[in-house]
């Protein structure tokens, strides 16, 4: 009268095995208890399971039914255990003889009529199970596309409890889902609403965007209102390179764990573009909540985190971004849960040069005093600014000139060059765990930068001349590496280094480490 099934519980972005044990003892009173640290949604599963079993042509046993989710010290949440519990109860009452229960991962939520409802976190659970040698999974039909690219996993998608039981008993086996390779998963790049060809003029900003996309660098646009900062940022997804298989899995895992993957969708192959509003809290950006859910910085992993009007974000929130940006992961600790989420995203930010917005404008006089300007700029702290590889001034194009300016290249053309540069980087970093130049640490820089002596000498002079920090030093080398990659050159030459410096020196012009007469 005892039966066990296998399920996995989600902890952060990985799964831990949970033994679902059902024991039915004799008696003529109907009793059903569930033990093993279940949360509210799991406790409710008792009612769903009872109804689903009865409505699928099975009987709920009389007597005392005890379900134990073991190990008991792992906090279980969500509805993913429903199917495993129902199967265990049916098996324990010997209504059907099932096989392979210890080798098959069983996931899914039950509706009252016995049909299966998709659940969160299927991809991370399946990946974790596979790492532990489980290679069969029974799951809701709608969750199946999510795991279609997990190599070596036999996936059995079921529509309802009855189908699941028929499969497990061998009476009517479900066909394994056809496995897809990553290339087959790649969706056709979506048509982008914003295309670089529609941005007139702005060649410096466009060039900067190309370099940023090629090397995955953080970038800050500074410019007067209406100069097109936001539009430029929105063009970025259209020129970003395709995600690699590893990147796609990493990102999809986070989305799946956060419950943000629409049911029925497969692996995410398009880089995410996250644009949280400036009223977002630190927890929303970094991750948090009772269950330590991933924040925007992790949802943008391998993609773009766009902060429009950066000084409007509360200082505390911006400062909290520093560590995830630097380390590439966010540790989220809450009373009930601890999790580490990857957060290697490109930070793209925009801001006005001052409160009234017109400092440096040629069309309108700025109304701000120099102390006001400094106060405004100081909302972005030096350390945070240091972590932004590129700072670009966006030129304000007078309205009458807009129509006169030539339209530039289309995003697709730029993307070809970006892809080429990124391929060089993937080749370079194939024995490491990073994918692009921006992710290099000091050791990687030493190993891969390949800068000419002349270029390094130039950099040293520039550091002195523009009063740049040591962190800027490393960032400029990384930038120069990307500039050289775009040209397909093995070495960083003086010209590459100089262009990299150009992308980095407006902070000395605005934040003014050099001439401090206005303070």
């Amino acid at each position, binding site marked *: 009268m005892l039966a066990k099934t296998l399920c996995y519980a989600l902890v952060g972005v990985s799964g831990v095995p949970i033994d679902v044990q059902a024991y039915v003892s004799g008696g003529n009173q109907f009793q059903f208890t569930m033990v093993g640290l279940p949360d509210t949604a799991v406790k409710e599963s008792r009612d769903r399971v009872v109804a689903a079993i009865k409505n699928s042509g099975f009987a709920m046993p009389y007597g005392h039914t005890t379900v134990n989710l073991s190990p008991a010290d792992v906090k279980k949440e969500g509805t993913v255990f429903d199917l495993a519990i129902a199967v265990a109860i049916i098996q324990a009452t010997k209504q059907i003889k099932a096989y392979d229960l210890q080798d098959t991962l069983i996931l899914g939520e039950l509706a009252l009529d016995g049909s299966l409802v998709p659940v969160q976190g299927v991809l991370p659970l399946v990946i974790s199970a596979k790492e532990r040698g489980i290679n069969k999974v029974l799951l809701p039909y709608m969750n199946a596309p999510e795991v279609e690219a997990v190599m070596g996993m036999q996936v059995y998608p079921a529509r309802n409890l009855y189908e699941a039981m028929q499969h497990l008993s061998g009476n009517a086996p479900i066909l394994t889902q056809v496995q897809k390779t990553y290339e087959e998963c790649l969706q056709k790049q979506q048509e982008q609403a914003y295309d670089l060809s529609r941005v007139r003029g702005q060649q410096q900003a466009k060039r900067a965007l190309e370099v940023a996309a090629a090397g995955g660098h953080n970038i800050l646009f500074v410019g007067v209102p209406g100069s097109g900062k936001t539009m430029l940022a929105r063009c970025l997804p259209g020129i970003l390179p395709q995600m690699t298989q590893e990147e796609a899995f990493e990102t999809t895992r986070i989305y799946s764990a956060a419950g943000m993957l629409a049911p029925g969708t497969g692996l995410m192959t398009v880089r995410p573009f996250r644009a949280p509003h400036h009223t977002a809290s630190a927890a929303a950006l970094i991750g948090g909540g009772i269950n330590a859910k991933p924040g925007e910085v992790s949802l943008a992993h391998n993609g773009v985190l766009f902060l429009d009007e950066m000084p409007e974000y509360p200082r505390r929130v911006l400062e909290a971004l520093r560590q995830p940006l630097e380390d590439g992961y966010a540790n989220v600790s809450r009373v009930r849960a601890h999790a580490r989420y990857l957060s290697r995203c490109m930070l793209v930010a925009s801001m006005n*040069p001052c409160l009234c917005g017109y400092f440096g404008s040629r069309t309108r006089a700025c109304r701000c*005093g*120099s102390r006001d300007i400094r106060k405004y700029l100081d909302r972005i702290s030096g350390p945070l600014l240091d972590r932004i590889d590129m700072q670009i001034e966006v*030129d304000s194009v007078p309205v009458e000139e807009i129509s006169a300016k030539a339209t530039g290249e289309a995003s697709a053309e730029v993307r070809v060059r970006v892809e080429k540069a990124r391929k060089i980087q993937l080749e370079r970093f194939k024995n490491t765990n990073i994918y692009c130049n921006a992710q290099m640490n000091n050791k990687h820089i030493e190993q891969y930068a390949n800068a000419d002596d002349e270029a390094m000498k130039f950099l040293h002079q520039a550091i002195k001349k523009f009063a740049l920090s040591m962190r800027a030093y490393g960032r400029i080398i990384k930038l120069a590496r990307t500039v050289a990659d775009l040209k397909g050159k093995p070495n960083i030459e003086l010209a*590459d280094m*100089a262009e990299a410096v150009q992308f980095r*020196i407006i902070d000395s012009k605005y934040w003014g480490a050099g001439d401090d*007469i*206005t303070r």
Partner: protein
Amino acid sequence: MISQDKAARLWLAYSESLTYKGRERLIELYGSAIDAYNNLSSNEGNVIGAKAFDELISLKAKGLDYFYLELEKAKAKAVFLGDENYPYMLKEIQDPPDVLFYYGNLPGDDYKAISIVGSRKDTRYGSKQAFSIARDLSLSGVIVVSGLAYGIDAAAHKGVVDSGGKTIAVLGSGIKNIYPKDHIPLAREIIKLGGAIISEYPLYSKPLAYHFPVRNRIVSGLSHGVLLIEAREKSGTLITVSHALNQGREVFALPGQVDAPGSLIPHSLLRDGARLATCADDIIEDMGWGNAENKADNSLNIEELNLTNEQGKIYHALCVDSLSFEELLEKTQLSASEANTHIVIMQMQGIIEALPGGMYRLNN
């Protein structure tokens, strides 16, 4: 030890609420400060006001030595009207302060001084000009006087400090209570370089709002001319200008961008006959302190510069006017990547300068 009379004058100066007029009336009535100290009668409450009278009585209770010892304790100095080292320009004004408290060194007996005043809400243009004009004046041996406030004042002091010269800051608070506090390091720098921090208010006096217009007469009084850089409506700097006119000082104004908020007042002064100043030499020449023929020849010669072909194009494009990046590309037909590279190299060589708003110009 100082004389009994001077000690009594310190006693009067230590009173916060005794007005300039009230002090004059007392001296008139008693003949001298020491007599006033010895014979102060309760009738005087009607003459100088009850508040001032009460204050004088309570100060008197501390004894005559107290004031001098207090000064010594603070390592501060005081100069009295009539003393040899009392600034000679200040002596001539209608209402010179009887006692000046100061740190540092007062100017010598034959000094030249210009005060630079302007808005606390300065623009970058204004503070940059204040800085460089003050520095150049100082390099020509002129003492720069200002008020240690934010904005133009601070920029002027910093310009002098940059040149290592002497500047005088006149405070609207006591010299032991420097306002604004952010400028304490600057004040220290000023004293170190042989300048002075001056106030007519008692050592620990607060920076009360009504101090500042009164203080401004000392700013203009100490100097031979006043340079106005940026002022917004209802600006305290206008008070300094009217003091300067009353005291017969020369008034200079620096022109600004026509539609900038700080330009209105300087421009209307210029229309009313103030002298136009664009650099230190303008002022030195107008004051008759020497001719400006020794202006350095700053013109760059392109043959002397070692420019590549691309850099030459950029140089020539910028010869006419300052340009944005976009315009530079149009004129030079370089790619964005090439232009980025060469702009940085030319900036490093000090040939061109980047301006806020993404503009570039030749460095002069």
